[in-house]
């Protein structure tokens, strides 16, 4: 009933969203003095509250970067959202930007009135299974019970994967993130399916990581990134170029530590990138030193990655396809 009520309220809000949707988002955020950001309810590395109740992770750092680009400081109001509720919350204006491990798909981009300005993590959908079942490939899973989180692309991806192989499965679809994981650990299902990064987190944060195996099958690509409403081009540009700025900073070797001296360097490229020379802000309605502010607050992409999910974090994920294009990865930024 609660869900119905929330959704009902969302519908009412949607109906009265006229004023929110047409307002100038950048101005609205400046007036309000903070960015409202929809984040995961708790996924270590990608968005989970720390002891102080501040959200930490790759996605929250993107929110901080966007807030800093607009406000000059990382003032963010966190709104934790379930996979099911996230897009409705964004549609009805409850949040300004959604940074919650969201996979871009045609339907979401084209029919929800939303848009995905950038990618911050290239992921894939995989399967996590108990090691003692002795399964090494998804082909052997005929008849298995699979737990799926509601509101994610995995609901139809998993069906396609199993029907393509001609084997059957029983789905258990669960909305709440915590119940979803506990259903797997309690043995209600043999397999859970989700993004590989998420499975890695779940496995590592379990009591005994060696008791669980991530199968080698990659069921689908899963490009993740922040999402905004499609009706404010200027704000969409800010999100898109903030994301590119983080990548370009890594390319140029600009880090949180050296951003000060880089700004004072002789390189004309660095000077205009970091706002020592005017131009970089005006075109998207921001101050000229917005990139400087962003990097000095959250660091560049590699710093964000390493700190939250990479080598400096308990998860220790490889950069893999999330490396820069110049290192053989997929992260590629247009020119500033």
């Amino acid at each position, binding site marked *: *009933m*609660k*869900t*119905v009520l929330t*959704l*009902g309220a*969302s*519908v009412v809000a*949607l*109906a009265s*969203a*006229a004023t929110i*949707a047409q307002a100038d988002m950048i101005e609205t955020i400046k007036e309000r003095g903070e960015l409202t950001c929809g984040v995961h309810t708790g996924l270590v590395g990608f968005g989970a509250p720390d002891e102080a109740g501040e959200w930490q992770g790759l996605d929250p750092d993107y929110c901080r970067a966007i807030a800093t680009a607009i406000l000059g400081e990382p003032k963010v109001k966190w709104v934790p959202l379930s*996979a*099911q509720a996230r*897009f*409705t919350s964004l*549609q009805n204006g409850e949040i300004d930007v959604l940074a919650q491990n969201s996979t871009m798909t045609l*339907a*979401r981009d084209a*029919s*929800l*009135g939303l848009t995905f300005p950038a990618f911050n993590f290239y992921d894939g959908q995989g399967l996590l299974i108990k090691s003692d*079942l002795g399964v090494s490939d998804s082909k052997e*899973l*005929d*008849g*298995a*019970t699979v*737990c799926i989180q*509601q*509101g994610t692309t995995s*609901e*139809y991806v*998993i*069906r*396609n994967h199993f*029907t393509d192989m001609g084997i059957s*499965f*029983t*789905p*258990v*679809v*669960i*909305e*709440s993130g915590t*119940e979803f994981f*506990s*259903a797997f650990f*309690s*043995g*209600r299902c*043999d397999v859970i399916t989700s993004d590989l990064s998420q499975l890695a987190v779940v496995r590592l944060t379990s009591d005994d990581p060696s008791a669980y195996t991530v199968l080698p099958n990659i069921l689908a690509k899963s490009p993740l990134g922040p999402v905004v*409403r*499609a*009706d404010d081009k200027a704000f969409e540009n800010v999100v898109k170029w903030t994301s590119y700025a983080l990548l370009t900073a890594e390319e140029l070797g600009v880090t949180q530590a050296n951003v000060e001296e880089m700004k004072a360097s002789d390189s004309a490229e660095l000077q205009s990138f970091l706002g020592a020379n005017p131009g970089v802000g005006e075109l998207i309605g921001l101050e000229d030193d917005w990139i400087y502010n962003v990097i000095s607050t959250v660091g560049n992409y590699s710093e964000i990655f390493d700190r939250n999910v990479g080598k400096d974090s308990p998860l220790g994920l490889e950069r893999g396809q999330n490396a820069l294009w110049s290192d053989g990865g997929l992260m590629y930024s247009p020119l500033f």
Partner: protein
Amino acid sequence: MNPSFRRERMRHLTIQVFTIGTVVALLWLVASMVQHRLELMGINTGFGFLSNRAGYDIGESLIPYDGDASYGRALLAGFSNTLKVAVSSIFAALALGLLAAGAMLSGHSTANRIAKFYIKTVRNTPLLLQLFFWFGIFTISLPAIRDRLTLLPGVYLSNRGLNYPTPDLALGLVFLLALAILVFTLIYGARLRSRGAKTRLFSIIGWSIGLGVVPLAATTGIGHLNMPEIGRFAIKGGGVLSPEFMTLFIGLSIYTGTYIAETLRGAVMAVASGQGEAAAALGLTRGQSFRLVVLPQATRIALPSIVSELLNLVKNSSLGVAVGYPDLVSVGNTAMNQTGQAIEMIAIYMLAYVTINVIITKCSQVLEARYEW
């Protein structure tokens, strides 16, 4: 017709037309505003998506369904699950309520204490919490398939649910036949008895045929049972009550049972004590007095509140989303997520629940009319 009466009717008619007209106009206004906004925001509208391919699977369904069917079919499958859990819980809740109310009114102190403990603990905690509790019991506490509990031959309890054998078509028909014979024996026997006839022989014959049909069919090999068989991952064959269904069924029945018990107890207490005393004075036994004098009056008092508890039960079944039961709301939420058509889906939910509840209300009105005097 009397002119003043006609004027009165005219006045009522005008008021009604005006009221309904205003409501319809308002609804239309809101709908067109919403439609306009959604178009501006680039969000799809309309019910056309219902015939598109759904593309996702549903764990259990009373009607045949697979992922290649349409969204409309998926919603029907979800609705069938809502009906399944709602109807079965209604009967269980009524039985539990009756039992607990009986225990409290019986004057037996142990029964009284147990019933009071049940009502106090269950009624004072949130339903969602109780559902999580039962879900934990069914998934964490029960053993895996390999270490399943065998309750009866072919009846297994594990963290995958309760598996049981199901009869095939022939045996199913035999079961139905047996049931029909037993029901006939009971009803026709009662009727004969009320006319003063001796029914002992009739009953013996009826019961022995009714109870004998099934073993007879089984030994002659007419019908077979589909026995559950243990596979590597799942128990195949036979029927299964999933842990999600049992969670919701048990959670809803136990929760609503407390309210029904209290309503029934209150209703019996509300019948003036003079009624029972008068019945005793007329020479009725305690049982007769309860059955013929107190209960009909208590039922009349209790009916409206019990019906509203049952309506709540139906609506609460949508909490199944939290424990992964594929009811209408769960299935619909997935459809909503894939198509983005929240308003249409909410409208469908409302229509579905209103329909079930209008039917329940109608039934209760028929019942209430029977208790009028």
